Protein backbone atom coordinates (compact mmCIF):
# COMPACT_ATOMS: atom_id res chain seq x y z
CA UNK A 1 0.00 0.00 0.00
CA UNK A 2 2.78 2.38 0.97
CA UNK A 3 4.60 1.41 -2.22
CA UNK A 4 1.64 2.44 -4.33
CA UNK A 5 1.29 5.75 -2.50
CA UNK A 6 4.97 6.52 -3.12
CA UNK A 7 4.70 5.59 -6.78
CA UNK A 8 1.60 7.76 -7.22
CA UNK A 9 3.37 10.65 -5.47
CA UNK A 10 6.50 10.31 -7.61
CA UNK A 11 4.54 10.01 -10.85
CA UNK A 12 2.51 13.13 -10.01
CA UNK A 13 5.69 14.97 -9.02
CA UNK A 14 7.53 13.93 -12.21
CA UNK A 15 4.44 14.87 -14.22
CA UNK A 16 4.43 18.39 -12.78
CA UNK A 17 8.16 18.53 -13.52
CA UNK A 18 7.45 18.15 -17.23
CA UNK A 19 5.28 21.25 -17.00
CA UNK A 20 7.79 23.21 -14.97
CA UNK A 21 11.29 21.72 -15.36
CA UNK A 22 12.61 23.27 -12.12
CA UNK A 23 10.33 20.89 -10.23
CA UNK A 24 12.52 18.05 -11.51
CA UNK A 25 15.38 19.53 -9.47
CA UNK A 26 13.06 19.38 -6.46
CA UNK A 27 12.17 15.77 -7.27
CA UNK A 28 15.85 14.89 -7.04
CA UNK A 29 16.20 16.83 -3.78
CA UNK A 30 13.25 14.90 -2.39
CA UNK A 31 14.55 11.49 -3.50
CA UNK A 32 18.03 12.21 -2.17
CA UNK A 33 16.76 13.22 1.28
CA UNK A 34 13.83 10.86 1.85
CA UNK A 35 15.15 7.88 -0.18
CA UNK A 36 11.64 6.52 -0.86
CA UNK A 37 13.24 3.44 -2.40
CA UNK A 38 14.47 2.51 1.08
CA UNK A 39 11.04 2.95 2.67
CA UNK A 40 9.35 0.53 0.32
CA UNK A 41 9.64 -3.21 -0.11
CA UNK A 42 8.89 -3.71 -3.77
CA UNK A 43 8.82 -1.90 -7.07
CA UNK A 44 10.78 1.28 -6.31
CA UNK A 45 13.79 -0.72 -5.13
CA UNK A 46 14.40 -2.05 -8.59
CA UNK A 47 14.14 1.28 -10.45
CA UNK A 48 17.06 3.76 -10.34
CA UNK A 49 14.73 6.68 -9.51
CA UNK A 50 17.58 8.87 -8.24
CA UNK A 51 19.43 8.53 -11.55
CA UNK A 52 16.27 9.18 -13.55
CA UNK A 53 15.51 12.29 -11.48
CA UNK A 54 18.99 13.77 -11.84
CA UNK A 55 19.08 13.05 -15.58
CA UNK A 56 15.71 14.76 -16.03
CA UNK A 57 16.69 17.70 -13.80
CA UNK A 58 19.92 18.37 -15.72
CA UNK A 59 18.22 17.67 -19.06
CA UNK A 60 15.38 20.05 -18.17
CA UNK A 61 17.86 22.77 -17.30
CA UNK A 62 19.87 22.28 -20.51
CA UNK A 63 16.84 22.18 -22.80
CA UNK A 64 14.29 24.49 -21.24
CA UNK A 65 15.83 26.87 -18.74
CA UNK A 66 16.78 30.48 -19.29
CA UNK A 67 20.57 30.66 -19.22
CA UNK A 68 21.12 34.34 -19.93
CA UNK A 69 23.48 36.00 -17.49
CA UNK A 70 24.33 32.66 -15.87
CA UNK A 71 26.86 33.24 -13.12
CA UNK A 72 29.21 30.73 -11.58
CA UNK A 73 30.13 31.29 -7.95
CA UNK A 74 33.71 30.81 -6.78
CA UNK A 75 32.58 28.08 -4.44
CA UNK A 76 31.10 26.10 -7.32
CA UNK A 77 34.60 26.02 -8.80
CA UNK A 78 35.95 24.87 -5.42
CA UNK A 79 33.32 22.11 -5.24
CA UNK A 80 34.34 20.87 -8.70
CA UNK A 81 37.98 21.07 -7.60
CA UNK A 82 37.19 19.00 -4.50
CA UNK A 83 35.33 16.51 -6.71
CA UNK A 84 38.36 16.11 -8.98
CA UNK A 85 40.70 15.86 -6.01
CA UNK A 86 38.54 13.14 -4.40
CA UNK A 87 38.54 11.30 -7.72
CA UNK A 88 42.34 11.34 -7.62
CA UNK A 89 42.54 10.03 -4.05
CA UNK A 90 39.99 7.31 -4.90
CA UNK A 91 42.25 6.00 -7.67
CA UNK A 92 45.22 5.82 -5.30
CA UNK A 93 43.22 4.85 -2.19
CA UNK A 94 44.56 2.59 0.59
CA UNK A 95 41.36 0.54 0.34
CA UNK A 96 40.26 0.81 -3.31
CA UNK A 97 37.07 -1.23 -3.01
CA UNK A 98 35.78 0.57 0.08
CA UNK A 99 36.89 3.93 -1.31
CA UNK A 100 34.94 3.30 -4.50
CA UNK A 101 31.80 2.58 -2.45
CA UNK A 102 31.95 5.99 -0.81
CA UNK A 103 33.01 7.73 -4.02
CA UNK A 104 29.87 6.40 -5.71
CA UNK A 105 27.61 8.63 -3.62
CA UNK A 106 30.05 11.45 -2.82
CA UNK A 107 30.59 12.46 -6.43
CA UNK A 108 26.83 12.72 -6.94
CA UNK A 109 26.44 14.99 -3.90
CA UNK A 110 29.29 17.24 -5.05
CA UNK A 111 28.27 17.32 -8.69
CA UNK A 112 24.67 18.20 -7.74
CA UNK A 113 25.90 20.92 -5.36
CA UNK A 114 27.92 22.46 -8.20
CA UNK A 115 24.92 22.24 -10.57
CA UNK A 116 22.18 23.38 -8.18
CA UNK A 117 23.04 27.13 -8.02
CA UNK A 118 22.78 27.37 -11.82
CA UNK A 119 19.08 26.64 -11.54
CA UNK A 120 18.39 29.07 -8.69
CA UNK A 121 17.57 32.06 -10.86
CA UNK A 122 14.59 33.48 -8.97
CA UNK A 123 13.59 34.15 -5.42
CA UNK A 124 10.78 31.59 -5.65
CA UNK A 125 13.24 28.91 -6.74
CA UNK A 126 15.55 29.56 -3.78
CA UNK A 127 12.55 29.45 -1.49
CA UNK A 128 11.16 26.31 -3.17
CA UNK A 129 14.47 24.50 -2.76
CA UNK A 130 14.63 25.31 0.95
CA UNK A 131 10.95 24.46 1.41
CA UNK A 132 11.38 21.02 -0.17
CA UNK A 133 14.55 20.36 1.80
CA UNK A 134 12.68 21.13 5.02
CA UNK A 135 9.52 19.23 4.11
CA UNK A 136 11.54 16.22 2.95
CA UNK A 137 13.60 16.24 6.15
CA UNK A 138 10.38 16.74 8.12
CA UNK A 139 9.18 13.31 7.02
CA UNK A 140 11.97 11.91 9.22
CA UNK A 141 11.85 14.62 11.88
CA UNK A 142 8.09 14.38 12.50
CA UNK A 143 8.40 10.61 12.95
CA UNK A 144 11.28 11.10 15.39
CA UNK A 145 9.47 13.87 17.26
CA UNK A 146 6.23 11.94 17.74
CA UNK A 147 8.05 8.77 18.76
CA UNK A 148 10.16 10.71 21.25
CA UNK A 149 7.03 12.09 22.90
CA UNK A 150 5.32 8.70 22.81
CA UNK A 151 8.19 6.60 24.10
CA UNK A 152 10.93 8.92 25.39
CA UNK A 153 13.20 7.92 22.55
CA UNK A 154 14.99 4.96 24.02
CA UNK A 155 18.62 5.92 23.81
CA UNK A 156 21.23 6.27 21.13
CA UNK A 157 20.57 4.12 18.08
CA UNK A 158 17.19 3.02 19.45
CA UNK A 159 14.81 5.59 17.99
CA UNK A 160 13.15 3.89 15.05
CA UNK A 161 13.30 6.33 12.12
CA UNK A 162 11.64 3.92 9.66
CA UNK A 163 14.88 2.75 8.02
CA UNK A 164 17.15 0.21 9.70
CA UNK A 165 20.42 0.71 7.88
CA UNK A 166 21.43 3.85 9.79
CA UNK A 167 22.70 5.77 6.79
CA UNK A 168 22.16 9.19 5.26
CA UNK A 169 19.84 11.42 7.24
CA UNK A 170 18.38 8.37 8.98
CA UNK A 171 21.48 8.10 11.20
CA UNK A 172 20.76 9.44 14.70
CA UNK A 173 23.63 11.93 15.11
CA UNK A 174 23.32 13.21 11.55
CA UNK A 175 19.59 13.89 11.77
CA UNK A 176 20.17 15.57 15.17
CA UNK A 177 22.66 18.04 13.74
CA UNK A 178 20.66 18.61 10.55
CA UNK A 179 17.36 19.02 12.45
CA UNK A 180 18.89 21.77 14.59
CA UNK A 181 20.66 23.37 11.62
CA UNK A 182 17.37 23.85 9.76
CA UNK A 183 15.54 25.49 12.68
CA UNK A 184 16.58 29.05 11.63
CA UNK A 185 15.35 28.36 8.09
CA UNK A 186 11.99 27.10 9.40
CA UNK A 187 11.71 30.31 11.44
CA UNK A 188 12.48 32.32 8.30
CA UNK A 189 9.49 30.67 6.59
CA UNK A 190 7.28 31.92 9.44
CA UNK A 191 7.93 35.51 8.34
CA UNK A 192 9.04 35.60 4.71
CA UNK A 193 7.58 32.57 2.92
CA UNK A 194 5.62 33.24 -0.28
CA UNK A 195 4.73 29.69 -1.39
CA UNK A 196 2.88 29.11 1.87
CA UNK A 197 1.93 32.61 3.04
CA UNK A 198 2.78 32.91 6.73
CA UNK A 199 -0.74 32.88 8.19
CA UNK A 200 -1.60 31.30 11.54
CA UNK A 201 -1.68 27.77 10.11
CA UNK A 202 1.79 28.06 8.57
CA UNK A 203 3.16 29.63 11.75
CA UNK A 204 1.60 26.91 13.93
CA UNK A 205 3.01 24.17 11.70
CA UNK A 206 6.46 25.79 11.68
CA UNK A 207 6.43 26.06 15.49
CA UNK A 208 5.40 22.41 15.80
CA UNK A 209 8.17 21.44 13.39
CA UNK A 210 10.76 23.45 15.35
CA UNK A 211 9.60 21.62 18.47
CA UNK A 212 10.00 18.28 16.67
CA UNK A 213 13.50 19.34 15.55
CA UNK A 214 14.45 20.12 19.16
CA UNK A 215 13.13 16.70 20.21
CA UNK A 216 15.37 14.80 17.79
CA UNK A 217 18.56 15.09 19.91
CA UNK A 218 16.45 14.01 22.91
CA UNK A 219 14.97 11.03 21.11
CA UNK A 220 18.27 9.89 19.66
CA UNK A 221 20.20 10.77 22.86
CA UNK A 222 23.00 12.35 20.85
CA UNK A 223 25.35 14.62 22.73
CA UNK A 224 26.26 16.43 19.54
CA UNK A 225 22.63 17.44 19.11
CA UNK A 226 22.54 19.01 22.57
CA UNK A 227 25.67 21.03 21.80
CA UNK A 228 24.06 22.15 18.53
CA UNK A 229 20.94 23.34 20.41
CA UNK A 230 23.16 25.33 22.78
CA UNK A 231 25.04 26.94 19.91
CA UNK A 232 21.83 27.76 18.06
CA UNK A 233 20.46 29.46 21.19
CA UNK A 234 23.63 31.58 21.35
CA UNK A 235 23.55 32.44 17.63
CA UNK A 236 19.89 33.44 17.83
CA UNK A 237 20.66 36.16 20.37
CA UNK A 238 22.02 38.26 17.51
CA UNK A 239 18.79 37.98 15.54
CA UNK A 240 16.21 38.76 18.22
CA UNK A 241 15.18 42.30 19.09
CA UNK A 242 14.45 41.87 22.80
CA UNK A 243 17.61 40.12 23.88
CA UNK A 244 17.03 40.15 27.64
CA UNK A 245 13.49 38.78 27.28
CA UNK A 246 14.81 36.13 24.88
CA UNK A 247 17.53 35.02 27.30
CA UNK A 248 15.03 34.90 30.17
CA UNK A 249 12.64 32.84 28.05
CA UNK A 250 15.45 30.44 27.10
CA UNK A 251 16.35 29.97 30.75
CA UNK A 252 12.76 29.32 31.82
CA UNK A 253 12.10 26.94 28.91
CA UNK A 254 15.37 25.10 29.51
CA UNK A 255 14.64 24.59 33.20
CA UNK A 256 11.03 23.64 32.54
CA UNK A 257 12.13 21.03 29.99
CA UNK A 258 14.48 19.17 32.35
CA UNK A 259 11.80 17.19 34.27
CA UNK A 260 10.34 16.01 30.97
CA UNK A 261 13.62 14.69 29.56
CA UNK A 262 13.86 10.90 29.53
CA UNK A 263 16.51 9.35 31.78
CA UNK A 264 18.25 7.73 28.81
CA UNK A 265 18.90 11.25 27.54
CA UNK A 266 20.05 12.81 30.82
CA UNK A 267 22.31 9.83 31.59
CA UNK A 268 23.96 10.10 28.20
CA UNK A 269 24.34 13.88 28.46
CA UNK A 270 26.06 13.50 31.83
CA UNK A 271 28.81 11.54 30.07
CA UNK A 272 29.90 14.79 28.36
CA UNK A 273 31.59 15.76 31.63
CA UNK A 274 33.22 12.36 32.13
CA UNK A 275 34.36 11.91 28.56
CA UNK A 276 37.60 10.17 29.62
CA UNK A 277 35.64 7.27 31.13
CA UNK A 278 33.49 6.93 28.04
CA UNK A 279 34.50 4.58 25.28
CA UNK A 280 32.85 6.50 22.46
CA UNK A 281 34.66 9.73 23.39
CA UNK A 282 38.00 8.06 24.19
CA UNK A 283 38.14 6.22 20.89
CA UNK A 284 37.40 9.48 19.13
CA UNK A 285 40.38 11.18 20.72
CA UNK A 286 42.59 8.18 19.91
CA UNK A 287 41.41 8.07 16.28
CA UNK A 288 41.98 11.81 15.90
CA UNK A 289 45.56 11.43 17.18
CA UNK A 290 46.06 8.56 14.76
CA UNK A 291 44.70 10.68 11.90
CA UNK A 292 47.10 13.54 12.62
CA UNK A 293 50.02 11.12 12.53
CA UNK A 294 48.64 9.44 9.42
CA UNK A 295 48.38 12.80 7.64
CA UNK A 296 52.01 13.53 8.43
CA UNK A 297 52.99 10.34 6.60
CA UNK A 298 50.31 10.75 3.90
CA UNK A 299 49.84 14.50 3.39
CA UNK A 300 47.67 13.97 0.30
CA UNK A 301 45.25 11.63 2.08
CA UNK A 302 44.59 7.93 1.96
CA UNK A 303 41.37 8.04 -0.03
CA UNK A 304 37.85 7.34 1.22
CA UNK A 305 37.53 5.05 4.23
CA UNK A 306 41.27 5.21 4.98
CA UNK A 307 40.34 4.86 8.67
CA UNK A 308 40.00 1.11 8.04
CA UNK A 309 43.78 0.92 8.39
CA UNK A 310 43.98 2.34 11.91
CA UNK A 311 45.07 0.49 15.05
CA UNK A 312 44.53 2.49 18.21
CA UNK A 313 45.30 2.12 21.90
CA UNK A 314 43.61 4.31 24.44
CA UNK A 315 43.33 4.58 28.19
CA UNK A 316 39.86 4.27 29.66
CA UNK A 317 39.26 5.39 33.22
CA UNK A 318 37.01 2.86 34.94
CA UNK A 319 35.24 5.42 37.09
CA UNK A 320 35.93 9.13 37.12
CA UNK A 321 38.27 10.11 39.95
CA UNK A 322 38.94 6.52 41.01
CA UNK A 323 42.41 5.60 42.25
CA UNK A 324 42.77 2.44 40.20
CA UNK A 325 44.89 2.38 37.06
CA UNK A 326 43.24 3.23 33.74
CA UNK A 327 42.19 0.32 31.58
CA UNK A 328 44.04 0.11 28.25
CA UNK A 329 41.80 -0.69 25.31
CA UNK A 330 42.98 -1.74 21.85
CA UNK A 331 40.89 -1.33 18.75
CA UNK A 332 41.18 -1.08 14.99
CA UNK A 333 39.33 0.35 12.00
CA UNK A 334 37.50 2.94 14.11
CA UNK A 335 35.63 5.59 12.12
CA UNK A 336 36.67 9.25 12.30
CA UNK A 337 33.59 10.58 14.10
CA UNK A 338 34.51 14.05 12.87
CA UNK A 339 34.22 15.64 9.46
CA UNK A 340 37.44 17.60 9.96
CA UNK A 341 39.48 14.45 10.63
CA UNK A 342 37.55 12.61 7.95
CA UNK A 343 38.78 15.19 5.45
CA UNK A 344 42.32 15.21 6.84
CA UNK A 345 42.67 11.43 6.82
CA UNK A 346 40.90 10.74 3.55
CA UNK A 347 41.79 13.78 1.44
CA UNK A 348 44.91 15.05 3.19
CA UNK A 349 45.82 18.68 3.76
CA UNK A 350 44.77 19.91 0.28
CA UNK A 351 41.36 18.24 0.57
CA UNK A 352 40.83 19.60 4.05
CA UNK A 353 41.86 23.07 2.86
CA UNK A 354 39.39 23.05 -0.05
CA UNK A 355 36.61 21.72 2.19
CA UNK A 356 37.28 24.36 4.84
CA UNK A 357 37.37 27.05 2.15
CA UNK A 358 33.97 25.94 0.78
CA UNK A 359 32.47 26.09 4.26
CA UNK A 360 34.14 29.18 5.66
CA UNK A 361 33.62 31.27 2.53
CA UNK A 362 29.92 30.41 2.88
CA UNK A 363 29.81 31.83 6.38
CA UNK A 364 31.69 34.97 5.34
CA UNK A 365 29.50 35.51 2.26
CA UNK A 366 26.32 35.15 4.30
CA UNK A 367 27.69 37.67 6.80
CA UNK A 368 28.37 40.05 3.93
CA UNK A 369 24.85 39.60 2.54
CA UNK A 370 23.08 39.93 5.88
CA UNK A 371 24.86 43.24 6.50
CA UNK A 372 24.25 44.54 3.01
CA UNK A 373 20.54 43.66 3.06
CA UNK A 374 19.63 44.50 6.63
CA UNK A 375 16.94 47.01 5.62
CA UNK A 376 13.71 45.46 7.03
CA UNK A 377 11.56 47.16 4.37
CA UNK A 378 11.56 47.09 0.62
CA UNK A 379 11.97 44.56 -2.14
CA UNK A 380 14.87 42.71 -0.51
CA UNK A 381 13.63 42.62 3.08
CA UNK A 382 13.64 38.81 2.92
CA UNK A 383 17.32 38.58 1.98
CA UNK A 384 19.08 39.64 5.19
CA UNK A 385 17.10 37.25 7.44
CA UNK A 386 17.55 34.40 4.94
CA UNK A 387 21.32 34.94 4.83
CA UNK A 388 21.32 35.01 8.65
CA UNK A 389 19.34 31.74 8.78
CA UNK A 390 21.59 30.02 6.24
CA UNK A 391 24.63 31.25 8.14
CA UNK A 392 23.36 30.06 11.54
CA UNK A 393 22.40 26.68 10.08
CA UNK A 394 25.85 26.37 8.54
CA UNK A 395 27.64 27.23 11.80
CA UNK A 396 25.52 24.66 13.66
CA UNK A 397 26.48 22.10 11.01
CA UNK A 398 30.18 22.93 11.42
CA UNK A 399 29.88 22.30 15.17
CA UNK A 400 28.05 19.01 14.62
CA UNK A 401 30.67 18.09 12.02
CA UNK A 402 33.25 18.25 14.80
CA UNK A 403 31.81 15.03 16.21
CA UNK A 404 30.21 13.29 13.23
CA UNK A 405 31.84 12.30 9.95
CA UNK A 406 29.45 14.27 7.74
CA UNK A 407 31.89 16.11 5.48
CA UNK A 408 30.01 14.91 2.41
CA UNK A 409 26.45 14.91 3.74
CA UNK A 410 24.37 15.69 0.61
CA UNK A 411 21.80 17.71 2.58
CA UNK A 412 24.51 20.15 3.67
CA UNK A 413 25.77 20.50 0.11
CA UNK A 414 22.23 21.46 -0.89
CA UNK A 415 22.30 24.10 1.84
CA UNK A 416 25.63 25.33 0.44
CA UNK A 417 24.06 25.25 -3.03
CA UNK A 418 21.25 27.47 -1.74
CA UNK A 419 23.81 29.90 -0.31
CA UNK A 420 25.66 30.11 -3.62
CA UNK A 421 22.35 30.46 -5.47
CA UNK A 422 21.31 33.34 -3.20
CA UNK A 423 24.68 35.00 -3.72
CA UNK A 424 24.64 34.76 -7.53
CA UNK A 425 20.95 35.78 -7.63
CA UNK A 426 21.73 38.96 -5.71
CA UNK A 427 24.79 39.66 -7.86
CA UNK A 428 22.53 39.42 -10.92
CA UNK A 429 19.99 41.73 -9.32
CA UNK A 430 22.67 44.29 -8.48
CA UNK A 431 23.97 44.24 -12.03
CA UNK A 432 20.42 44.71 -13.33
CA UNK A 433 19.90 47.69 -11.08
CA UNK A 434 23.04 49.35 -12.31
CA UNK A 435 22.01 48.46 -15.86
CA UNK A 436 18.60 50.18 -15.57
CA UNK A 437 19.55 53.89 -16.03
CA UNK A 438 21.60 53.15 -19.14
CA UNK A 439 18.69 51.25 -20.61
CA UNK A 440 16.26 54.10 -20.00
CA UNK A 441 18.35 56.54 -21.99
CA UNK A 442 18.95 54.08 -24.80
CA UNK A 443 16.61 53.84 -27.76
CA UNK A 444 14.95 50.40 -27.77
CA UNK A 445 16.45 48.47 -30.63
CA UNK A 446 14.04 46.67 -32.95
CA UNK A 447 15.48 43.27 -32.01
Amino acid at each position, binding site marked *: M*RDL*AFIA*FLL*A*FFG*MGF*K*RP*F*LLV*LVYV*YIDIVSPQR*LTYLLLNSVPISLIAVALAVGGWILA*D*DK*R*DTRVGGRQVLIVLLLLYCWGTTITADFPVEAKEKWDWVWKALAFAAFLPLTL*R*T*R*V*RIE*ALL*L*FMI*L*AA*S*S*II*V*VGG*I*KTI*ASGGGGYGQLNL*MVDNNSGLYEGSTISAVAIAIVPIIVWFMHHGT*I*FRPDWRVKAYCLALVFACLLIPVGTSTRTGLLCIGLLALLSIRNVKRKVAYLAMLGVLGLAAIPFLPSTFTNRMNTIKTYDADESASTRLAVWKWTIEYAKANPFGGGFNAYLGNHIRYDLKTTPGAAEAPKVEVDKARAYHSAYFEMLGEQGYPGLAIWLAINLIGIVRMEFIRRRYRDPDGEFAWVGPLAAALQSGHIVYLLGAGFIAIAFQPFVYMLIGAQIGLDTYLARKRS*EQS*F*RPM*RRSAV*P*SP*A
Partner: protein
Amino acid sequence: MIDNLALGLSHGLMMLAAFLLLKRPDLDREPSPHDSSDTKRKSTEKPRHDA
Protein backbone atom coordinates in the same frame (compact mmCIF):
# COMPACT_ATOMS: atom_id res chain seq x y z
CA MET B 1 0.87 4.25 12.10
CA ILE B 2 3.11 7.12 13.23
CA ASP B 3 5.34 6.51 10.21
CA ASN B 4 2.44 6.72 7.79
CA LEU B 5 1.02 9.80 9.49
CA ALA B 6 4.33 11.67 9.26
CA LEU B 7 4.95 10.50 5.70
CA GLY B 8 1.42 11.45 4.69
CA LEU B 9 1.70 14.90 6.24
CA SER B 10 5.08 15.77 4.73
CA HIS B 11 4.26 14.31 1.33
CA GLY B 12 0.87 16.01 1.28
CA LEU B 13 2.51 19.35 1.96
CA MET B 14 5.13 18.73 -0.73
CA MET B 15 2.41 17.90 -3.24
CA LEU B 16 0.51 21.06 -2.29
CA ALA B 17 3.70 23.14 -2.57
CA ALA B 18 4.47 21.67 -6.00
CA PHE B 19 0.91 22.43 -7.11
CA LEU B 20 1.19 26.03 -5.86
CA LEU B 21 4.53 26.40 -7.67
CA LEU B 22 2.88 25.41 -10.96
CA LYS B 23 0.76 28.54 -10.68
CA ARG B 24 3.67 30.88 -9.96
CA PRO B 25 4.92 32.66 -13.09
CA ASP B 26 7.81 34.11 -11.08
CA LEU B 27 9.17 30.60 -10.52
CA ASP B 28 10.94 30.72 -13.87
CA ARG B 29 11.49 34.40 -14.54
CA GLU B 30 11.38 37.67 -12.73
CA PRO B 31 10.91 41.01 -14.47
CA SER B 32 14.31 42.30 -15.49
CA PRO B 33 15.38 45.53 -17.23
CA HIS B 34 17.36 43.37 -19.66
CA ASP B 35 14.20 42.04 -21.25
CA SER B 36 12.08 45.19 -21.25
CA SER B 37 12.16 45.41 -25.05
CA ASP B 38 11.55 41.65 -25.33
CA THR B 39 8.47 41.82 -23.12
CA LYS B 40 6.99 44.65 -25.14
CA ARG B 41 7.39 42.56 -28.21
CA LYS B 42 6.13 39.43 -26.51
CA SER B 43 3.01 41.15 -25.22
CA THR B 44 1.63 41.13 -28.73
CA GLU B 45 2.31 37.42 -29.10
CA LYS B 46 0.01 34.66 -27.94
CA PRO B 47 0.47 33.90 -24.23
CA ARG B 48 2.29 30.62 -23.52
CA HIS B 49 0.35 28.09 -21.54
CA ASP B 50 3.32 27.09 -19.42
CA ALA B 51 4.39 30.64 -18.57
